[in-house]
């Protein structure tokens, strides 16, 4: 039986709204007591004022990358179905769920269609029974509105959230950048930013018609944000997320054909980025996810249009999200909520909390510790990050999963 006492911490617990100094005792994989003296024989960790929060729940990861999760304080992740082979079968879902244990708990998202082909609905009921936390269209939207309509109808019957990638498929075909001055200047084939709004508008309408729970994996444009905001106001069951690159970078990061900045959706105009920040501040955007999608060097050391989209993000998620706190846009408690309780609520997972009796899934981090993101030294499968060289603040000191303390 593990006994752990973390003392002199700043306890940040979105579930209870607590943000105050305190201590926490872990016994037998669960939180045993708060603000109590360490019991005999416990390992005592002096937090020296660092923040102790529930372990992060990453709402979108494409890889189960334990080392990166550990470094990023992530204790649960929602795994996108874009695996090899795609998670379109109950057995594959079951296997994916076991992949990260015991260090990271994986909640697979079932492929919405067979082989993610966008045309035949997969066995999502059976996959739910096998442990799928939701259904996802994968890296691409479902082009056929009829298929999407029936998918949402069917998923609503199983009360499964449907995660959708919102980019109009025909507008974005062959595109590697957002249409505008930069793409024109650099000679990159581009799709208009409103390709996102078109897809969001359709999926919102279909969700409204079917009563399905829609989760838009990434909202990256001003128009997209406005559509979600309006839909929420009229009571549509929609939630949405964003990843740090669309919070912190705009299309100019592609300059010099930096393939690390080749993402899906592509980076947007500065005005879109500002709209994303506003939407985070006013609660239109519910969750911040890593979008962790590390790529092998061979997939990135190519001409821009030939490189694969995607970036590593798990190890840097927390530090980059904390920029919202540093810039005075959101209090720490709210940012932690977007990384813990909000994604858990979207996918119906147990509420991450620091309450007595809750599972001891924790992250201890120093929100002010400065470091520099270095793509050559990121933990995990690959370090391709568009943030290479960026100085950030916020370092994970300890990740606790099921009562086991792990130092990155």
């Amino acid at each position, binding site marked *: 039986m593990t006994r752990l006492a973390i003392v002199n911490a700043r306890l940040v617990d979105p579930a209870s709204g607590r943000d105050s100094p305190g201590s926490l005792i872990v016994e037998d994989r669960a939180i045993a007591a708060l603000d109590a003296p360490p019991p005999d024989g416990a390992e005592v960790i002096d937090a020296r004022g660092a923040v102790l929060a529930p372990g992060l729940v990453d709402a979108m990861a494409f890889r189960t990358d334990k080392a990166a999760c550990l470094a990023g304080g992530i204790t649960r992740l929602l795994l996108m179905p874009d695996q090899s082979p795609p998670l379109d079968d109950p057995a594959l879902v079951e296997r994916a769920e076991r992949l990260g244990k015991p260090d990271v708990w994986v909640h697979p998202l079932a492929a919405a269609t067979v082989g993610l082909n966008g045309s035949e609905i997969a066995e999502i009921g059976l996959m739910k029974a096998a442990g799928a936390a939701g259904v996802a269209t994968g890296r691409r939207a479902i082009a056929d509105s009829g298929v999407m309509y029936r998918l949402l109808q069917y998923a609503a019957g199983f009360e499964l959230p449907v995660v959708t990638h919102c980019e109009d498929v025909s507008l974005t075909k062959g595109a590697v950048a957002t249409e505008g001055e930069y793409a024109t*200047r650099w*000679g*990159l084939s581009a799709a*208009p930013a409103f390709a996102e709004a078109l897809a969001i508008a359709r999926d919102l309408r279909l969700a409204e018609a079917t009563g399905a729970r829609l989760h838009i994996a990434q909202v990256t444009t001003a128009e997209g944000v406005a559509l979600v905001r309006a839909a929420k106001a009229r009571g549509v069951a929609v939630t949405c997320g964003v990843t740090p690159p669309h919070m912190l970078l705009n299309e100019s990061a592609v300059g010099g*054909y930096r393939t690390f900045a080749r993402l899906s959706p592509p980076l947007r105009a500065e005005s879109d980025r500002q709209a994303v920040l506003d939407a985070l501040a006013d609660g239109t955007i519910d969750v911040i996810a890593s979008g962790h999608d590390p790529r092998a060097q061979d997939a990135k050391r190519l*001409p821009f*249009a*030939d490189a694969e989209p995607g970036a590593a993000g798990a190890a840097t998620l927390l530090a980059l999200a904390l920029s919202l706190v540093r810039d005075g846009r959101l209090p720490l408690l709210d940012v932690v909520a977007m990384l813990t309780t909000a994604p858990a609520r979207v996918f119906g997972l147990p509420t991450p909390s620091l309450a007595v009796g809750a599972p001891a899934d924790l992250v201890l981090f120093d929100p002010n510790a400065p470091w520099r993101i270095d793509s050559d030294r990121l933990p995990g499968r690959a370090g391709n990050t568009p943030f290479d060289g960026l100085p950030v603040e916020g370092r994970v000191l300890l990740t606790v999963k099921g009562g086991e303390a792990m130092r990155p």
Partner: protein
Amino acid sequence: MTAPAPGRHSLPPGVHPFPHRHLLGIEGLLPHEILYLLDEAERWVDFNRAPAKADDRLRGLTQINAFFENSTRTLLSFEIAGKRLGADVVNMTVGASSVKKGETLLDTALTLNSMHPDLIVIRHDASGAVQLIAEKVDCPVLNAGDGRHEHPTQALLDALTIRRRKGRLAGLTVAICGDVLHSRVARSNFQLLGSLGAKVRAVAPPTLLGAQVDRLGVEVFTDMEAGLDGADVVMMLRLQRERMAGAYVPSTREYFHFFGLTAQRLAAAKPDALVMHPGPMNRGVEIDSAVADDIGRSAITEQVEMGVAVRMACLDVLTRTRRGVEGWA
């Protein structure tokens, strides 16, 4: 017509005429650097017209022309330019698709680099590909066209042609017409002509213009007559065959009807307007044969001639550091 004397643009003291290792694009070149290349090219024009056209300044140097995209004319032009300067010229032509199947582009680049070339001329169908290779090799790299991005020697030869015919570039109105969206020639020309003080227009149907192309410093027209009105130079762009039928324009017939350069349409431009085309031409698609072949108006064959001179100048300038030319080491 007499050619201007070389070196007519004097540099401010202490300014290096061309402090770049590679020639990857017009972007990033200062006006005096562009003028320097044009002046250097000027002297090769007369040289090329003489019966004995051999110079030995690149003797012993290896020039690799690595063409990952089909090209006959540009490849030939670079090969002749290198040979006239005495370089050992080797051509490597690879379909981009066969590279994708096996060896990566960077593997190819490292392979080439291991053979110790003194200069690599690269053409590739992906924007940015030439820069990617340039970062990995030890010798100067010359961009012979990368995707839709840049084709600097084409813009230089166009500028040289215009300057020789019109005596200047500043103040001229140049209408660049056709498939601007997919054209590296257009992008390099926007930069070069704008940088040297010409007024540049982009004339195309909206589907072939590119988003926010006005932000590249050009005036935008979707009507051919209006775009040609008062132009000193009319530069036509090639419309790729795969973009003709229904994808970007309905048909070649309709395209020619509204955007083809005919004698009648050319009448909107200045009476002495120069007609140019980077080649190869689609006669009857973007340009009428009567216009293309009008010796008084068309500078199309002259462009090809200037191409060799410009490329000789670029090869010479880019290898000066290697050759230990005084002031360049």
